C-alpha cells in the first residue's frame, strides 16, 4: 500500500530550540541529518545519549511552548521496525546509498547501517551517526526519526569479517534485517559473515559491467544467481530483477487462466517458441533471461543449448518424453525502455499467439483478437510512456513489504544458471 507518493524528508524543524539546548548543538546536528563522528566502540552509547538529549529538549521546549506560543518545537519520535545494512564502496556508490537510505526511512522506520569499504594505506575503522527525520503522513505536528550509523572500513585489502564484527552487533535483535550488497561486493566470502546476523539478502542481478566481454558478463551473472541459490537456506534472498518481472509473470500466467484472452493451461505443453524483446543491454538481458527461465522451469523444459551473439540470445529446450524442442529468443532492442519491452509465445499448431506488450504505461495481453490490460504495480512507471521499470526505491519498498522465501524464483535462477553453463559466446 505504499505506492502513494512519499512524504518529503524534512530534516529537523526545531533548529532554534535545539541550538539552545546544552550539548553544543550536537543533538541538533544529529537530528538534522548531519554525520557526527563517534567512537567505534561506543556507537550505541552515543546514540542513546543523543536520543536522550533530544527527548529532554522536547520536554523543555514543550514546557516552553505552553508559555510561549511562538515556540517552533515539533516533537520527534524515534522509530525502528527493521534493520537495513547497505554494503558499498566509498565515493559515488556511498552517496547513492545514502540517498537511498534517506528515501527508505520515509516509509520504513529502521536502523540503517551504511557499511562503507574504502581503499587506503592505513587500516582503520571509523563510525558516524545521524538521523533521518520526516513528518508523519498528513501531520505537521510530529516527526518520525530513524537513526543511521555509518561504519567505514579502510585498508589495503578488504576483510569482510572485520567490518562485519563492527556492523553485526549493531543489528537490533528480533527485527527483520536486510543486507544489500552493492554489485562489486556480492561474493559469497563478503556476504557470509553478515548473514550470521541478517536474515534477508537483497541482490540486484540487473547491475552488470556493460563493457565487460561476453564471457565475463555471463560468468558474473551466473555467479550472482549461484550465490542466491547457495545462500537460500540461510536467508531470504531477493533479486530486484525478479521483482521487476512480477507484472509480466502475472500477465502471462493469467493469459492461461479465466481472463478474456483465456488460453487453456494444457496449451503450455504445445509452446513452440518464445521471443522476449528487451532494452538496456546487460541490465535488460538478466531480466529477459530470468523471465524465460521462470517460464521454462514452470513448464518443466530442460535447456539443451544456448548461444549469445550480437543479434541476441537463442536457446533450445527439450520437452520431457518428447523429441520436440522449444526455442527461446532474447532480442536486445536498441533505444527502447530498459527492461522487458514485449513477450510473444507461439504454439505448435499455430492456433493461438500470445502477445504481451508494454503499451501506454500498462501491459496489453492479447490473443486472437481478444485483449486485456494489466496495470503495472509500480506507481513510478504506471501510465508513463517509455518507462516500464519502477524506480529503484520503489522496488526496495516492495521487497521490504512483500517479500518472503520464494521457491519459484530459486527454481528460475537454477534454470538460468544451468542454461548459462551451456552457453557459447
Amino acid at each position, binding site marked *: *500500500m*505504499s*505506492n*502513494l*507518493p512519499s*512524504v518529503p524528508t524534512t530534516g529537523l524543524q526545531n533548529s532554534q530550540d535545539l541550538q539552545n539546548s546544552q550539548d553544543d548543538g550536537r543533538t541538533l546536528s544529529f537530528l538534522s541529518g548531519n554525520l557526527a563522528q563517534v567512537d567505534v566502540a561506543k556507537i550505541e552509547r552515543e546514540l542513546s545519549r543523543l536520543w536522550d538529549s533530544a527527548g529532554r529538549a522536547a520536554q523543555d521546549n514543550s514546557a516552553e511552548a505552553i508559555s510561549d506560543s511562538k515556540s517552533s518545537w515539533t516533537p520527534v*519520535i524515534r*522509530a525502528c*521496525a527493521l534493520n537495513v545494512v547497505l554494503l558499498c564502496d566509498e565515493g559515488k556508490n556511498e552517496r547513492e546509498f545514502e540517498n537511498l537510505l534517506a528515501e527508505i*526511512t*520515509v*516509509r*520504513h*522506520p529502521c536502523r540503517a547501517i551504511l557499511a562503507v569499504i574504502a581503499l587506503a594505506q592505513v587500516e582503520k575503522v571509523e563510525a558516524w551517526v545521524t538521523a533521518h527525520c520526516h513528518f*508523519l*503522513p*498528513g*501531520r505537521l505536528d*510530529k516527526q*518520525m526519526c530513524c537513526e543511521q550509523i555509518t561504519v567505514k572500513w579502510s585498508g589495503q585489502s578488504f576483510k569482510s569479517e572485520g567490518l562485519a564484527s563492527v556492523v553485526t552487533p549493531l543489528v537490533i535483535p528480533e527485527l527483520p534485517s536486510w543486507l544489500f550488497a552493492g554489485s562489486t561486493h556480492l561474493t559469497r566470502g563478503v556476504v557470509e559473515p553478515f548473514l550470521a546476523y541478517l536474515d534477508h539478502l537483497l541482490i540486484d542481478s540487473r547491475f552488470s559491467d556493460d563493457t565487460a566481454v561476453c564471457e565475463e558478463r555471463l560468468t558474473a551473472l551466473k555467479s550472482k544467481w549461484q550465490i542466491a541459490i547457495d545462500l537460500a537456506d540461510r536467508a531470504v534472498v531477493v533479486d530486484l530483477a525478479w521483482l521487476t518481472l*512480477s507484472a509480466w*509473470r*502475472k500477465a*502471462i*500466467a*493469467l493469459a*492461461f*487462466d479465466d*481472463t*478474456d484472452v483465456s488460453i487453456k*493451461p494444457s496449451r*503450455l505443453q504445445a509452446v513452440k517458441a518464445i521471443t522476449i524483446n528487451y532494452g538496456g543491454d546487460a541490465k535488460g538481458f538478466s531480466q529477459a533471461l530470468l523471465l524465460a527461465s521462470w*517460464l521454462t522451469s*514452470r*513448464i*518443466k523444459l530442460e535447456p539443451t543449448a544456448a548461444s549469445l551473439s550480437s543479434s541476441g540470445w537463442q536457446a533450445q529446450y527439450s520437452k520431457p518424453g518428447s523429441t520436440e524442442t522449444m526455442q527461446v529468443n532474447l532480442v536486445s532492442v536498441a533505444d527502447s525502455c530498459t527492461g522487458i519491452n514485449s513477450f510473444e509465445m507461439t504454439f505448435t499448431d499455430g492456433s493461438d499467439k500470445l502477445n504481451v506488450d508494454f503499451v501506454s504505461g*500498462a501491459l496489453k495481453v492479447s490473443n486472437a483478437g481478444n485483449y*486485456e*490490460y*494489466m*496495470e*503495472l*504495480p*509500480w*506507481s513510478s512507471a*504506471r*501510465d508513463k510512456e517509455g518507462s516500464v521499470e519502477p524506480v529503484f526505491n520503489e522496488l526496495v519498498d516492495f521487497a521490504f513489504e*512483500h517479500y518472503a522465501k*520464494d*521457491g*519459484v*524464483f530459486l527454481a528460475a535462477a537454477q534454470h538460468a544458471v544451468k542454461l548459462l553453463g551451456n552457453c557459447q559466446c
Partner: protein
Amino acid sequence: MIEEKVLDNPLLEGLALDRHVDSLSFVIFGAHGDLTKRKLVPAMYALFLQGLLPRGFVLLGTSRTKMTDDEFRNLMRDSLIKFAPDLPYEEDSWSRFATSLYYRATDSSTAEGYEVIKSTLAELDAKHGTKGRHVFYLSTSPSLYLPIIKGLAASGLVTKAKVNEAWPRVVIEKPFGHDLASSIALDESIHEVMREHQVYRIDHYLGKETVQNIMVFRFANGIFEPLWNRNHIDHIQITNAETIGVEGRGAYYQEAGALRDMVQNHLMQLLALVLMEPPISMGAEATRDEKIKVLRCLKPLNPATIDKHAVRGQYGEGFIVGSQVPGFREEESVSPDAPTPTFAALKLEVDNWRWAGVPIYMRSGKRLAKSITEVAVHFKKAPHRLFEGDQGEADADGRHDNVLVMQIQPEEGISLKFATKQPGPTTMVRWLNMDFKYGTAFGARTPTAYERLILDCLIGDPSLYARTDFVEASWQYIEPLLEHWDNEKPADFPNYKAGSWGPKAADDLIASTGHAWRKL
C-alpha cells in the same frame, strides 16, 4: 481455490493473484450524497493511485440531481480536495481518473430510470471494455434499498447468478433493516433476485486496520491466545464514544437510536472478532462462520431481568470542548419528546466453554466527553500483592490489572498496561502503558476502511462484509431490548449531560458486578 488453479496452470504458483480486479463498472446510487463525496470517490481515487483499479474501469454516478458528466467530475474533484487531505491531489492523476467518471440523473422509482442506466452501461461497456461486469452501490436512504433492487432486477441489470458466477454485485450500506422482522423481509426480497454471494453488506468498521488487526493480533501471536479465556481474562469493555451529536441526521437518528446505529452492527462485529474461535482458514466463509457462532452463544436477554443488563440514556444540553451544545430533543428534525436512546450500555454474557462467567460490557453514546472507540481486555490480577506502594489508580484492594487495549479510533493502535519498578531505592511499583501506534510504527499512509472494503468487493472477497445470518442473529439478540424500550417509555430523559460519560445508571450497571468503566 488458488491451489486448484495452480495445479491446472503452473504459471500461477507464487503469484499474488488474490488482489486481481477484473475490468468493471461501479454504479453508485445516491451519487450526489455525502458518502459518495467524503468516502467513496476518495477511496476509489486512492485505489487508482495505487494501481489497484483495472484499466477497464467506469464509475457511473446516479441520483435525482441534474448534472453533466463534467459537473459531476468537478464536484468530485472539489470534494476530494476538501475531504481527503491525506491523498495527494495531482491534476495529471486526477484527469486520468476522471475520464472514468460518468453521471446520469435518474429517478430510481421509475422503470425509465433503470433503462437510462442500462443503456448507459451498455455504451460504457463498449467504450471501456468493462464487459458487463457491474457493481451497484446503494448509497441511499435505507427505504430505497428494496425499490432499487427490484428496479435493477426488473430491468435485467441484476440477475440471480449461478453459484460459480460472481456478477453482478450489490453493496448495501447499513442499517440492514430496522428490526428483526424488517431485516428478514429485506433479505427475503433480496434473495428473490440475487444469491447471497452477490450481496455485500458493508460495515465500515470491518475495513479499519485495527479491526482487521484484532485477528492478526490474536492468531498470529502465540503468547496471547493461551490467555484469551475465562481462566485469565476478568472482563472486557467495548467502548464507542462520540462527541458529535446527530449532525443533521436528526430524522434518521430519532428512528434508529444508539442500538440500531452502533450496537447491532459495528459493536457486534467487534465483539465477534474479540471472542471468536480461530477460523480454520482465512477463507471468506471460515471467518464468518466463527463470528456467527459467537452471537449464537450470547445468553438471550430475558425481558424480566433486562434492566439489569442494559441501560439507556439521552443527552441533554451541555458543553463539548468548551462549546455549549443543545440536548438531543432540541436538535433539528428531532421531536421535543423523542424517546430515542442516544446512549446504550449493555452487560453481555457468553454461554460457551471459553467465555463462561466473563462479563462483556459494551457502551455506545453520542455527545460524550471524548471521541474514542476501543476494546479493553482486563486480565485477572496477580493472585498475591507482593509489592507495597502501587502507584496510580487501583481497585479497592489496592491491586491493578493488566489491560490490553485495542484502539480503533481516533488513533489506531494497541497498548498494554503492566507494572514496572520505579527507579530508586524502594520497591515502589509503577503501572505504565506499552504503546503501539499504527501511525508511527509504519511510515506508510494507512488506507481508509472504504478503500479496503471497496477493493475487496471489486475483487469478489466478501470476508469483511456482513453475512445475512450474522445480521439476523444480531437483530435477534437485541430484539427483546428494542421491544422492552419501546414498551417502557423513558421517564427520566434526558438523563445525561452532553460532555459527560453517560447516565449514572451505566456506572451502576457495571458496578453491580464489581467493575468500573475505564476512565478515557
